[in-house]
């Protein structure tokens, strides 16, 4: 499902960077923290997700 994408909601500061660049994959919960869009399958070759990983200001997203 997550295609090797790691995600730490405790580290997330709710910048919304990932949602802005890959809205199809990421969303923010009511507290502003990152969540995957329900049912989404993450593709390792998805450039937008790559951009979200590179742009996360606190390293809350990474490729395993």
């Amino acid at each position: 499902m997550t295609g090797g994408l790691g995600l730490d909601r405790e580290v997330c500061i709710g910048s919304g960077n990932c949602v802005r660049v890959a809205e199809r994959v990421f969303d923010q919960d009511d507290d502003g923290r990152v969540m995957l869009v329900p049912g989404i399958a993450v593709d390792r070759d998805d450039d937008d997700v790559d951009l979200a990983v590179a742009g996360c200001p606190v390293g809350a997203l990474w490729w395993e």
Partner: protein
Amino acid sequence: MTPTDTAARPDPLTFTRGADKLDPPDHFGRWRSESPLRRITLWNGDPAWVALSYEAVRTVFKDKDRFRSLPTTPGFPTINQADSASKGALLLPMLDPPVHTALREAVLREFILKRIEALRTRTETFVAELLDTMAGADQPVDLITSYAAAVPARFTCLLLGVPQTDAGFFTQCLDVRFTPSSSSDAVYGADDKLRQYFRELVAERSGGAPRDDLSSRLVTDSVLTGKLSAEDAAALLHVLLIGGFDTTKQMIALSTMTLLDRPEQLDELRSEPSLWRIAVQELLRYVSVVQIERRACVEDAEVCGHVIRAGEGVLVLLGSANRDPSVFPDADRFDIHRRDVPHVAFGFGIHQCLGQPVARLLMAVALPALFTRYPKLRLAVPVEQLRFREDRSIFGVQELPVVVTP
């Protein structure tokens, strides 16, 4: 002082820009090509480091445990006399965890991307009103007072749930606060007025029925539950206003200058409005309105091959990082077709700008609306006559006289 001392003393840090005021100082680029970090001498003779490369800047920003934001930390650098005097004011960007974490979390949900996007239509409405007013004004008009400052001020009213007519009070106080020639008494006076305004707002929201706005939710969720004192809540609202005002104001003004200078790219944006999304990203990178962030090192750290010692200060040069050619090919060129690369205009790490969805929304609404409504918009004076603030954390132009009608 012996000749050896003179030779060993690192270059003084200056912020003087070259002919194109929208480019960072030339020597930043020269320094960056020599080394990702460099020792410099501050205005008061103190030594410090500058972080120049994209990697060095991101590394310092991410290491919140070693590089602290609290201005009272030993070695914390200042960039001028005024900066040194304001050490006492504790603002959100100048706090470390856990205090920073608690305050940021109290308002984090207010800045969820979708929540800010939901205010787009109401933003478009007040932007159109401001543009209408400009048409009736005597030409030239100052784009800063009539538009660039009014947009973030009006949006703040919307977000806080206060009357739009309070925008004038905000801009009046903030103008004093951000004008370099203001005396420190005037700055304190302006800050006092704003603080009193927010104290009264918190008190008022603590009494009446809950309303659907940021100030009411902050009071209901944080003050009435005992998580934050009323005074902290007032300070937090004050900081949100300050943090989003001068930055957004200058981004609107300097973006307008950037685009007027590149009519072919502006024409492309006019004929293909979907390009604005990436153009906003590029404007944020290219202009990098926040030039400098400060950190103090509390534990020896290695950054890009240099050892920073505990007690040393670091000036993080965001504009330099955003022109790093190893990350942004042909970095000094403004290009609305540039591939989206995560720039550091909003900072990086735990202090990355909380209000960035607001900045993006206001730019994405205010800039197209301005150029659509006034296709013949032009500067009323030669660029050489404009006055810029070069030696401030937030770079900017003092006035931007424009002619909006033919």
